[in-house]
């Protein structure tokens, strides 16, 4: 049993089911499509009076505007696939075949995480760069956004890293819950339902809780500049998101070894 063999095996697993292709295709199309659509609308309505807040945001935090729509929605496909990568083994029973082949179990989780993270990183990098160059080209006649702008390159790299860690965050929850539907519901709730609800609670404590929520903190690294309401800096936020993921992943590994398969 070698590390290479385990990585090969996980790669065979992930490439040989259709949900991988469909989820990633959905992610790429939704992310690029929505960002392009929003940019086109902004560009088209540039001179109409209602559009001013976007202008201001485009100058201070351009990546939040150009990534916001597309990645905000597209990331749900990453969440779904991250859960499926492990939960589908439990719901189908294939996990038993996997654990019979690798009885120590933890190497399965590590190899699975590595293969998924690399795939997620590569697809996210392509998507983020295409989104960036496409939307900046659409907005070119109104506002000039380039990688050399302050914080822009960090935000672009940050968006890719955020999506990669998000995939692992979803995988950890999938491995903890072991039921596809339940795990997807929890991940999506944590990503898009809980943050705005917590954000509605007034007061500085609630504001801090909101700031430390996994994807709220994690998303900061894809912003060009820190906004007044943000309680963490870009890299601090990313660190908090990574910490959430590490803790969940450790719990997932601990339970994987302890629970009956």
């Amino acid at each position, binding site marked *: *049993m070698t590390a290479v*063999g385990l990585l090969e*095996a996980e790669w065979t*697993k992930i490439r040989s089911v259709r949900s991988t292709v469909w989820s990633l295709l959905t992610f790429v199309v939704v992310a690029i499509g929505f960002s392009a659509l929003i940019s086109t609308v902004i560009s088209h309505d540039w001179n109409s009076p209602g559009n001013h807040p976007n202008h201001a945001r485009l100058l201070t935090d351009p990546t939040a505007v150009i990534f916001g729509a597309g990645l905000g929605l597209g990331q749900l496909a990453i969440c779904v696939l991250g859960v499926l990568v492990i939960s589908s083994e439990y719901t*189908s029973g294939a996990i038993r*075949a996997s654990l019979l*082949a690798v*009885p120590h179990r933890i190497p399965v989780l590590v190899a699975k995480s590595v293969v998924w993270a690399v795939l997620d990183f590569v697809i996210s990098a392509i998507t983020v760069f295409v989104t960036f160059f496409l939307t900046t080209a659409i907005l070119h006649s109104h506002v000039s956004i380039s990688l050399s702008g302050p914080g822009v390159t960090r935000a672009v790299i940050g968006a890719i890293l955020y999506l990669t860690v998000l995939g692992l965050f979803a995988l950890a929850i999938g491995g903890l819950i072991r039921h596809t539907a339940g795990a997807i519901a929890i991940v999506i709730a944590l990503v898009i339902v809980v943050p705005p609800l917590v954000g509605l609670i007034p007061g500085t404590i609630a504001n801090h809780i909101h700031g430390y929520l996994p994807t709220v903190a994690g998303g900061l690294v894809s912003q060009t500049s820190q906004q007044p309401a943000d309680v963490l800096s870009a890299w601090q936020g990313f660190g908090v998101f990574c910490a959430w993921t590490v803790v969940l992943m450790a719990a997932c590994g601990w339970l994987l070894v302890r629970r009956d398969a």
Partner: protein
Amino acid sequence: MTSLPVAEVTGLIETRELTKRFGDKVAVDHLSFTVSPGRVTGFLGPNGAGKSTTMRLILGLDRPQSGSAMIGGRTYAQLSRPLATVGALLEARALHPGRSARNHLLFLAQTQGLPARRADEVLDLVGLREVARKRVGGFSLGMTQRLGIAAAMLGNPGVLMLDEPANGLDPEGIRWVRTLMQQLAAEGRTIFVSSHVMSEMAVTADHLIVIGRGKLIADCSTQEFIERSSERSVLVRTPDGDRLRELILAEGAQVRPEGNGGDDGVASMVVTGLPAPRIGELAASASVVLHELAPRLASLEEAFMELTADSVEYSDRSAR
């Protein structure tokens, strides 16, 4: 048929005081037995007796509360290339339905550092070459069973553990599995196969381990099991049933009425624990007329049901 040598690890399966509880329910109860190489060992018990759980404990999928299970002196987790030592077929549907048969075998081969062609070899072995690239979600239960057997044979292991392998197979498939198991046992491998169908085991297994409610009921050769089970019952028909019953009970044997017993004044009863000649002598000594005295070769199925009657998990007793 196979291109790799049989694994050198000796294939003795040994459980000692193995115990597994799920909540309040004891699934496996201080179970100790040994499964030897070179023969087919049948693992029998009614549904819910704990057969699958025992297999999962041996394979390290479930953790026992106490006791141990070893294969060739090592726990499953201690095997360096498990699939090259032990091949297992558990519930057949334990596959991702969207994956092709070949990809299922390919990823398993990769974990063990086996070449990809090994996947094709075992697909040939079980006759699934033509559907190798088809998604297993569309397979019949019989095809899925064959794929499970292919997966078990992937590492050419010295030990095979098969949980109800005949499930879903047609008669031709059942014969194929039986021949394969006997052939593999003849090569010196350990074959441990569970079933709840006694008649199937009677023609397949050399040795039997019978459990009920997680406890060991019998551990003997199939031959011995058959002889022990079929000798004991005798059908007797007599017009003087009450008198004969007393005589038999006085000898310490058991009597139970057979069929609708007392029609036309002739009682039918089944005697266990007393040989036919002795019943004849008893009847003669008391001048009881016998209309019939027939040693019954109880079917194996009956013997098995009798043996496990007290340990059936789900019975329809209330309906009788």
